[in-house]
């Protein structure tokens, strides 16, 4: 994994080809999510194939689903929900978790104890169950889904960031900043955050995968994205009957989920690194 792309090397960065592959797949799905409504060959909800679980053909590139709808169109539109909702939820969860975690580590004392116990209590409620309750009570909409998923994954991000920040907080440069009279905002934003970015991004990648899976789980229970639209998890679920026939309708969305989650982690484990040895 030592080979790197010359373009990045020119700017003083090293970027392994594994990371490049991850980045390209993520970009691909991101672009698809953006332009999906303009390029889908068939409307999402329309039954276009007379056969169900149709095979791959020149008309239906990824076959058709259990009602005879075009699978390619459904997956491309599904990318919007899977990528969009998960990305929004993971951003909110990690942002609030990390900010709270660093603050708790720096402030310490009662603030830390109270916040930690409260979020531990939240953490003890099973994610799927609390998602179920909230969606059942408020009803399913994209905003509700994003907020619910974010709330479920905030305590984990908090725990992780706090553990990292506590270690950094013990360093002398934090003591120096404190004796200088710096405020909390400067200490967490400027002294601690740059030192925990690496592990925090790795955590973000992992949490993104969890959220994609939980979203798929909720869709499986019928509480996620509502028909005729469907995210990838729902697509797998509704076509599960095609498994004995080896239908592309169940394989294709599974591959889509796998490709996205794996490439997110490939990218995060292989982020471009600044080359320290300048004399080369």
């Amino acid at each position, binding site marked *: 994994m030592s080979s790197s792309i010359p373009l990045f090397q020119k700017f003083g960065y090293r970027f392994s080809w594994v990371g490049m592959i991850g980045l390209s797949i993520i970009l691909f799905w991101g672009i698809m999510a953006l332009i999906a409504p303009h390029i889908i060959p068939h409307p999402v909800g329309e039954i276009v194939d007379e056969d169900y679980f149709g095979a791959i053909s020149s008309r239906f590139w990824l076959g058709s689903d259990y009602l005879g709808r075009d699978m390619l169109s459904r997956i491309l539109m599904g990318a919007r929900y899977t990528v969009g909702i998960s990305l929004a939820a993971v951003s909110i969860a990690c942002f609030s978790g990390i900010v709270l975690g660093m603050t708790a580590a720096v402030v310490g004392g009662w603030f830390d104890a109270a916040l930690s116990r409260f979020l531990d209590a939240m953490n003890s409620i099973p994610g799927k169950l609390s998602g179920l309750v909230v969606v059942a009570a408020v009803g399913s909409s994209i905003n509700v889904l994003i907020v619910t998923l974010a709330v479920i994954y905030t305590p984990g991000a908090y725990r992780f960031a706090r553990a990292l920040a506590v270690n950094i907080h013990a*360093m002398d*440069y934090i003591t*120096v900043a404190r*004796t*200088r009279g710096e405020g909390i905002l400067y200490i967490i934003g400027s002294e601690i955050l740059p030192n925990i970015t690496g592990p925090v991004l790795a955590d973000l990648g992992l949490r993104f995968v969890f959220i994609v899976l939980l979203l798929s789980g909720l869709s499986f229970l019928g509480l996620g994205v509502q028909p005729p639209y469907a995210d990838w998890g729902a697509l797998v679920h509704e076509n599960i009957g095609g498994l004995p026939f080896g239908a592309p309708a169940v394989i294709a969305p599974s591959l889509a989920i796998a490709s996205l989650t794996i490439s997110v982690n490939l990218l995060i484990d292989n982020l471009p690194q600044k080359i320290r040895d300048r004399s*080369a």
Partner: protein
Amino acid sequence: MQNLVEIRDLKVEATTDSGRRVEIIKGVNLDIAPGEIVALIGESGSGKTTIALTLLGYARAGCRISGGNVRIAGKDMVTLSERDRAAIRGTEVAYVPQSAAAAFNPAKRIIDQVIEVTRIHRLMPAHEARQKAIGLFRALSLPNPETIGSRYPHQVSGGQLQRLSAAMALISDPKLVIFDEPTTALDVTTQIEVLRAFKSVMKKGGISGIYVSHDLAVVAQIADRIVVLRNGEVQEIGTTADILTRAQHPYTRALLAAFEPQPRGGEILVKDRKVLLEVKDLVAGYGAKHRDGLPLIRAVDEVSLSVEKGRNLGIIGESGCGKSTLARAIAGILPASSGTIIFENRELPSAVRQRSRDQLREMQIVFQYADTALNPEKSIEEILGRPLTFYHGMRGKQREARVGQLLDMVHLPNSLRHRRPQELSGGQKQRVNFARALAAEPKLIICDEITSALDTVVAAAIIDLLKELQRELLLSYIFISHDLSVVEAVCDEIVVMYGGRKVEEITPAHLQAPQHPYSKLLFSSVPKLDPGWLDALELDPELVRSYSKS
């Protein structure tokens, strides 16, 4: 007589993160006769540990032995297979690490770790190994040799642990023992016992040794020959007496010169003597507070001292005597439980948070380890620029110019400003650490062991810099150290601390000899550049016992 160790044209290279290869050992030749102790001396980065490790056929991660050979009793460690090397490690060549505390597994009893080598190499039955270990404990003059092995590593002192790690190395009767700075982390009073124990065991067993150190005085006590290294090349090889008295190479002379820095003498910077800082009956410590507001463990117990403008105060004592806690209490990092701190005729609040920005600015603290005191994710410019913005509201061009001036003051090239701390050497980092304190334009700088992690030559340069800046900026220093020669070089007054209390205050300029028994012990324990010093040194055993922590 055939040599036990023959190193011929040894080359070690490392690969950097951009794939560039760097030669870190550039063709070293070295012989060690049976029963001889050879010292490798040099500053950090000179390759002394790297050479010592090649004797185990080992190169650190990212490095590899790229040429030459290392013969031990005829076997070439470079070309042997990993399995054959493993058979030699621990049996014929043994290793004593720098930090015994980090080398022992805290979860296992000491004796089991000491005899582990005999178990791995199936040298002798366990009960026999235990008996042998007890014999070694006795030879290394450890207290309670019969039972000390059944303790856990945290239950013995640092000096004892270091001797136990030597026992671990000697249990298999090796032909060669590698000592990797084994006394660097110890107090001077403990160092003596450890050095004595090592010396007698090695001489009695006729074992060859290689002793890696940057402390010439320590090496002079134990080594037969000294190899001076710099940048992976041998500068000079000679017998200990030759190196100490008839050094040829300029670098060796610089090392010798750095060993005894010029005392400060009675240099007077400020005519009218004004008290800058006065500390009265300061108590600080850790743990739960009693009803009277005093902490459970008093690390600093009713210490009073005063610092005058333009003059320096040294605080000296061994680790655990409370000198760093005192510094932290004065700086307000650990609020004092009682006592008063008067700075510039005004009483300071005990905690940082209650002090005004100007009060914080005028008293700066510089920490021992520049590695942890400088944020690794920030450039030198950001590190030095922040106090300028924070205290003086400087921005843009003005700030940039001032950072340049600060770098100039600490004799660093301006081109370093865009680098990060890990791209600098230890001495450069410490200069940046100090420049950050200067950026605040303080009146008093508390220096907490700032030269202790540095090599002798680098430390001497930092001391010179400190003195020079004091003349220019009329600063005062509180200089905390366990190294007496350094404190004598910088300070007008010296406070000796023991067990959280101030035992004596000495003014070196008045040629005043220490009176208190502990000060006497401390002062006489500092190694001298005389090979016969350790053997001639007689310490009152009663005195040593009453002040040893074991």
